């Protein structure tokens, strides 16, 4: 029962927090660039504005084009509800593990890429093609991270991993460090952040995600934007859950632990947002075909992590 409540709470909180996180990232970036920039709450206004606007649908768009935003939003939201962000006792925790999580996000991307192809424009195709290319490279890297975790914890279920890391002293391991870097690189790619993609650009040839959703407007666009924000939060919570589960409510003492969990989660999100903003400010976007090398690197790091773990276990 508590599981269900916690899940509902997380659904609500992630949805509520998602625009804020994106807003903070944008705001900090603006500040770091020396601009004043819109306030952290701007994304809420944007979403509402989009919702109220009239929706324009291309003439030859099919039913798929109109169904996709809802499905993408639902899938991403579900993913967000699976990752233990402030508590491990989630109802859905037992019905999808790390691999399933990746796959769920994958289905969202699959549908979105299809939508990009639906209208039959050059840019839509370009966006879908590149988005899928990046994803195809990011997923194996993600799996090697998973593999490292499975080696260490002998589990792929997120709550269990978190509880394990909290209860046992795994110490600082090279493997974990490598895995963390690898996962971060994946996260950057999956969320279309610099250096892989630039969420702010509207210069046609550099767009990836933006090009894919180019034809969307109004409420559809609002849903897709929201899904994108949810995805960012999900990845931040995922990194936190896997590498910094401190303060997570493992269901020992309900009341107080829950509050602690919430506080620590918000704290982590904030830190993550700031780190992301700093990183993006420091980096320049790379050419599309350098992305392969970037993600190939993260794949190698992941494998290295697994190998190091073997060695350390073999000793």
């Amino acid at each position, binding site marked *: 029962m508590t599981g269900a409540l916690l899940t509902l709470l997380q659904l609500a909180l992630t949805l509520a927090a998602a625009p804020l996180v994106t807003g903070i990232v944008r705001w900090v970036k603006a500040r770091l660039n020396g601009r004043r920039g819109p306030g952290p709450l701007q994304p809420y206004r944007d979403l509402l504005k989009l*919702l*109220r606007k*009239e929706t*324009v*649908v*291309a*003439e*030859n768009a099919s039913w798929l084009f109109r169904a996709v935003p809802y499905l993408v*939003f*639902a*899938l991403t939201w*579900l993913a967000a*509800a699976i990752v233990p962000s402030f508590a491990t006792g989630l109802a*859905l925790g*037992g*019905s*999808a*593990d790390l691999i*399933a999580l990746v*796959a769920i996000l*994958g*289905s969202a991307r*699959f549908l979105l*890429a299809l939508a*990009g*192809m*639906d*209208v*039959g*424009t050059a*840019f*839509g*195709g370009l966006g*879908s*093609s590149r988005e*899928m290319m990046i*994803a*195809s*490279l990011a*997923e*194996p890297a*993600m799996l*090697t991270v998973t*593999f490292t975790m*499975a*080696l260490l914890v*002998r*589990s*792929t*279920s997120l709550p269990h991993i978190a509880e394990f890391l909290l209860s046992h002293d795994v110490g600082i391991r090279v493997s974990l460090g490598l895995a963390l870097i690898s996962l971060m690189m994946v996260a950057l790619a999956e969320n279309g952040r610099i250096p892989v993609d630039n969420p702010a650009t509207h210069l046609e040839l550099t767009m990836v995600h933006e090009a894919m959703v*180019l*034809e969307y407007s*109004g*409420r559809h666009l*609002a849903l897709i934007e929201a899904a994108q924000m949810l995805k960012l939060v999900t990845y931040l919570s995922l990194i936190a859950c896997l590498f910094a589960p401190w303060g997570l409510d493992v269901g020992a003492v309900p009341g107080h632990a829950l509050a602690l969990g919430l506080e620590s989660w918000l704290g982590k999100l904030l830190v993550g947002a700031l780190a992301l903003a700093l990183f993006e400010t420091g980096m320049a976007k790379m050419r599309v*075909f350098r992305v392969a090398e970037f993600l190939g690197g993260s*794949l190698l790091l992941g*494998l290295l992590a697994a*190998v190091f773990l*073997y060695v350390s276990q073999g000793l």
Partner: protein
Amino acid sequence: MLLSVIGYAVLALVALGALGAVAGRFKATHDVVYGGALAASLVLLGAALLAFGHGDAAETLTLPIGLPWLRGHLRLDLLSAYFLMLINLLGAAASLFGWQYARHEPEPARVLPFYPLFIAAMSLVTIADDAFLFLLAWELMSLASWLLVLSTHEEPDTSHAAYVYIVMAATGTVALLLAFGLLAGSAGDYSFDAIRTHQLSPLLAGAVLILVLIGAGSKAGLVPLHVWLPLAHPAAPSHVSALMSGVMTKVAIYALVRILFDLLGAPDWWWGVVVMALGAVSALMGVLYALMQHDLKRLLAYHTVENIGIIAIGLGLALGARADGLDLLASLALIAALFHVLNHALFKSLLFLGAGAIQRATGERDMERLGGLIHRMPATAVAFLIGAAAISALPPLNGFVSEWFTFQAILDGAAFPQWLLKFEVPVAGAMLALAAALAAVCFVKVYGVVFLGRARSDAAARAGEVGRTMLVPLYALAALCVLVGALPSAVLALLRPLAAYLLPGGPVALARSSWLTLVPFDAGRSAYSGFTVLVAVAVLAGLASLAVRGLASARTRRAPAWDCGFPDASPALQYSAASFAQPIRRIFGSVAFAARETVDMPEPGDARPARLEVEMRDPVWDWLFAPVARAVAYVADRINIVQFLTIRRYLSLMFAALVLLLLLVAVMQ
């Protein structure tokens, strides 16, 4: 009892074939053959399902045919039953589809005799219980499918495809024959019972493994023996392609499992290394090949190579684990492989039948000439979308379940004591993940280019929805894809006993899973519930739409596409299949296929169109098959000289032979 029913059903199929041969040109024969094939397949399907009721108790039957002293042995055990079910489930679907589809074949009389024979042969393979009958059925299967491929004999590429196919098939049969020879040993008893009891030295067992990998692998399409598959599968009529790609390759997997897990005693750990490596390479190469294709059916055929690779990874893990006594892992990997066998059969047949529907509606197989079919063939589009999502291993569909199992098995690969396996497993896992992700890319390409966007040719623009009898099987298969994905426990009810049967003694994985949730080892380690995901997505999507309806304005306007303000009149400006695959081609193709792009960009003011030319080489063909062909040609040329000697020289040959033999005798005395 069941076995005799099966026997009669197979016999009926053969009889239908004979009927098709003699009365092929009459209209009524068509209905009789396809209707009969459908009925027989349903009977066989039912019998196979009932056979699971028997549990481990195998039913045997001996026929007075075949070798006089061996007789024909039939045996129905869980393994046979599982594959028999598979074959005839899809056989029924294909028959129903073909009933209408094949009417419009250029020469239906060339399909009628061999189509039922093909199903009969495949079914017979699964119940054969001696080497002779097995090889007879096996080769009959090749023969029937070869003739089915040749049914389109007047098309230019068919001849080459059929030739490559039949030669590869014969090579495989020969390899299997040698394998059985080793298995039976000098005792020379070729009944499977005798073979089971006959123990082999590790060296010979290894030789058998290699031979079986050549024999069954060439039929299944393991790299590098896959070359015939993308040629032959597309050449056949689509309902046959569906069977060849979806089912015949599974019969090869059956042979692999039957020999490696049943006939050929305890495995060695390096077997796992070999099989897994082959699987991983096949999975990755297969999907890369597929991405480079723009012929729809050939692309699907290459995906068969990929999926066979995934199955082989599972089998390899199972072999290694069994050798190392990791029974739980072994059973999980085996279940994963066999589950994927079913899933691939389902969605691959669905996709091939869909391709058939498209071909029927547009007469096109070239994706670059299709597009926008979601508007013209809405029903087909939905079914095909489900198939595409399933083969891309997206939850909550069936493809994901078996790949998830495979991943779970791989993640447990640390348990292997051998370092070679320890290191191979994560690499194989990464390759599998890459293959899965690329498969998603490939099917975004397929669906996006074929069904979405705008029509690229008049044929596509004028296409119309196909008939109901062709849609029914499509939707049946699509429904199964969803059901198996959401409630896989039903399939597990068949697979867990089967795994226990093949790996006697050890515990069987997934003991703790319920109808709702799959739990490979224990809940703490990993769990997945397709049903929950399905429901959750539905609910959340519902919530979202309610919220939007509440908050947002419902005003919607149809307008020309924005596309950054580019007025693009021509559908040719859309992203094509080639352009969609371009990034992948650039990243992997240059390595795997030595892909070269040459761009010919005219000077400003030059009116001629710019040209982009891509040329790719097939490494397997270049490095393996071309040399063999060259060698044979060389020897043939050299030996051919003997045809043109003078009589005197022939006499000299005789004389030399005589003197040589005389010397031999002189020496021997």
